[in-house]
């Protein structure tokens, strides 16, 4: 077991995709970084998703800009990383079941196109060329060539290896217990493995960031939005792109607490097809919900009839770190001097991790920010954050 150092320039709490990306970026900038996690790297939501890097599900606005920047950084890292992580620039296809849905989809795509996303309208008759096994009664679709996929656990490892090569330390089995302060400013983090004095503390604990923030004296609103995924038997390539139904974007933006489901189907390099997705506010309930699985299966079979006879060999669930305004929390604020937040990415953590890390790096190093980070500020009007320490 690695011991925690006595001090570091930055401690990153959370060795998931966002924490690992922050660690890599900060270490590359020459800072002494220590990443801590109460469990193993990627043990949280990073191993419960699908590894999506999407622009297709984002409406024009700050999150889409973040996604475009992040995508460029991911492409670069995929080429330079010593550790491969199944990066696939496969593209995504959103399909509409009705003329009405298609109209809405076209409108959304036009707006995205204007904001810099590559889009391509696909008529109903052309769908089979792109996806031979897709249902033949759909109204049409839009293809997004820029959507990509990675294997998220390997991606986390690749980022951490990069960080370690630049001098970072990774300490697992290390819980945050509290913080040390100089005045109001956090100057150290108290952990189950000792105190680490820091110049900056980055909280990238995903769905658990609210708990960690509280220990650092900040009340932050990040709630778990649960999702289920089904995994099929290994198959030869049959689904060429990510394919999902047009209701997906509405679900992402929804504040509905009850069970929502819209279909996402994608193949993987290793063979199984992943079927998603569901969204609901169910706390941290880890009991697999058959009802969610049934909905996922139903909607997946509707899109790809051949799936009816394909076996599901496994299911899993994870907790997306959600915020009330559906934007991530990236940055620091007066209520938390010395603390930077890199969390609240809901289901887009993998895709947005690199740009998040780039913003954090710029802020902590005092460099020019690659893009406007104010929409993600912890103390923005649409979010509640306050100090709770005495």
């Amino acid at each position, binding site marked *: 077991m690695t011991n925690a150092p006595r001090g570091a320039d930055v401690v990153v709490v959370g060795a998931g995709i966002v924490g690992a990306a922050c660690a890599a970026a900060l270490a590359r900038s020459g800072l002494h970084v220590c990443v801590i996690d109460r469990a*193993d*790297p*990627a*043990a949280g939501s990073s*191993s419960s998703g699908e590894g999506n890097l999407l622009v297709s599900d984002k409406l024009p606005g700050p999150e889409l800009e973040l996604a475009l920047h992040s995508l460029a950084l991911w492409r670069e890292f995929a080429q330079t990383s010593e550790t491969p992580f199944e990066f696939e620039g496969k593209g995504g296809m959103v399909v509409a079941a009705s003329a009405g849905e298609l109209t809405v989809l076209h409108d959304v795509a036009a707006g995205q196109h204007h904001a810099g996303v590559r889009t391509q309208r696909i008529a109903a008759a052309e769908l089979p060329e792109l996806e031979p096994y897709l249902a033949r009664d759909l109204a049409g679709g839009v293809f997004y060539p820029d959507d990509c996929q990675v294997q998220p*656990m*390997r991606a986390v*490892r690749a980022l951490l*290896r990069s960080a370690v090569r630049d001098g970072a330390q*990774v300490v697992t089995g290390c819980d945050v217990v509290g913080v040390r302060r100089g005045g109001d400013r956090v100057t150290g983090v108290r952990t189950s493995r000792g105190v680490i004095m820091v110049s900056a503390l980055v909280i990238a604990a995903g769905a658990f960031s609210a708990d960690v923030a509280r220990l650092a004296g900040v009340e932050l609103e990040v709630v778990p939005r649960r999702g289920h995924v*089904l*995994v*099929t*038997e*290994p198959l030869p390539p049959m689904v060429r792109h990510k394919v999902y139904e047009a209701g997906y974007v509405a679900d992402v933006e929804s504040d509905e607490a009850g069970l929502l489901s819209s279909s996402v189907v994608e193949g993987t390099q*290793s063979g*199984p097809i992943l*079927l998603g997705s569901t969204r609901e506010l169910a706390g941290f309930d880890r*009991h*697999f919900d*058959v*009802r969610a*699985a*049934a*909905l*996922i*299966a*139903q909607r*997946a*079979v509707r899109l790809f009839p051949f*799936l*009816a*006879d*394909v*076996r*599901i*060999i*496994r*299911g*899993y669930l994870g907790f997306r770190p959600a915020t009330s305004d559906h934007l991530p929390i990236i940055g620091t604020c007066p209520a938390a001097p010395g603390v930077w937040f890199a969390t609240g990415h809901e289901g887009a953590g993998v895709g947005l991790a690199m740009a998040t890390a780039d913003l954090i790096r710029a802020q902590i190093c005092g460099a020019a920010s690659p893009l406007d980070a104010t929409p993600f500020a912890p103390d923005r009007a649409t979010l509640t954050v306050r100090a709770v320490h005495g």
Partner: protein
Amino acid sequence: MTDPVVAVVGAGPAGLAASLAAAERGVRVVLLDSAAAPGGQILRQSAIAGHSAHRPAILRRVAAHPRITLRSRTEVVHARVSASGVDLLVRAEEQLRTLTVGAVVLAPGASELALPFPGWDLPGVLTPGAAQAMLKAHAVRAGSRVVVAGTGPFLWPVAAALVTAGAQVVALVEAASFPTVARRAGPLVTHGHVVAQTARYAAILARAGVPVLFGRAVVRAEGGDRLGRVVVGRTDQPGSAPQHAAIEADAACVGWGFVPSIELARSLGCAERSDLTRSYAVVHVDEDQATSLASVFAAGEITGVGGAALAAAEGEIAGTAAARSLGASGGMALRRARRARRRARRAASVLDRAFPLPAQWADRLESETVMCRCEEVTWGEIAAVVDDGVVTARAVKGQVRCGMGWCQGRICGVAVQQAIAARAGRPTAEVGDLGGRPFAVPVRAGELADLAEPARDETRA
């Protein structure tokens, strides 16, 4: 509940005993079993039409009991405790239904513990259980020149059955040394049943001239597209120069004991504990075979591997307790069953110690040795990430996919955990297991989709 029902999962010795016990207390029982016919592994009956071998009494009693409904070829995919009892997601004839019962007894048994070695994925290398199933159910011999190897009492009935069926068993290769077995199994001399059985198997093997090698293990299997021969080496002198002997064989039945099938218990959320001598998880139960969850009881191998007599005793107690949890009257003294359980547990723990897993079995692994058969993950790939600091089984799984294939880690799980522990120099408890995730058996997406339609629930057995 006006019509209390106990569901029993698994129709091996534990499940059969549990079903009878609950039914005798006046409760209806639904006995769910995935096989074509009840009996589990040890009481496996012939599948051949017209082969009417002697059916054990317990099978006849269960078949005849008016309150027991046997559902064969029925799998339990998932289970969840609910306000009304236990919801079981049950699969039969490629259809899913929800079955809600007041209490459940989990008795799904175990799978065989595999310890990989170079060439173990050659056709012709199989488990002793496979040889037994092929013989008992299908009247097929595993091979004509068969090596039976590994460790544990199970090798003996399999070797004896093969001999009786006309196969040439060219060797029984037991990893434990004879002094170890003799010394540690000594206390079993008071278990008349065990002594008689051992003597019977030994006599069969002796009459057939089967050499029994102690302190030896199959260290490699060789052949082109199928097994041609095995190489046997010593286990009792790990430091000395290897002395290997090659034995021509067309079948090698290699087994190292059993691993409890705890997938359903895990998805229910039952508390587990770690088996003391092997490194796998077992379901924790109290003296009445109750798990940590009200309405859920467990019996047989999943509470600790211990054989048929122990399973039957536990089953009787579990079934009775389950019935009482639904309001059935009668006491829980069950003196005979508790005494039988005590004795059987003692025998099981003696046998566990007498037949340990060879400590350095992982030293035999080569870089190309397949560890995960389903995903063909090699030892070299696993060792590389372990050496790089990935030191829990689940994290290793996330990197190299061992345990992510069809069998979801049932075959390779224990071996991968132990091999990681040895490589990383960490206790197996810290390495942890590969983790189980729903579903307990593969399910067609179409079957799940049908569940989303309304009126798919069936609450009455």
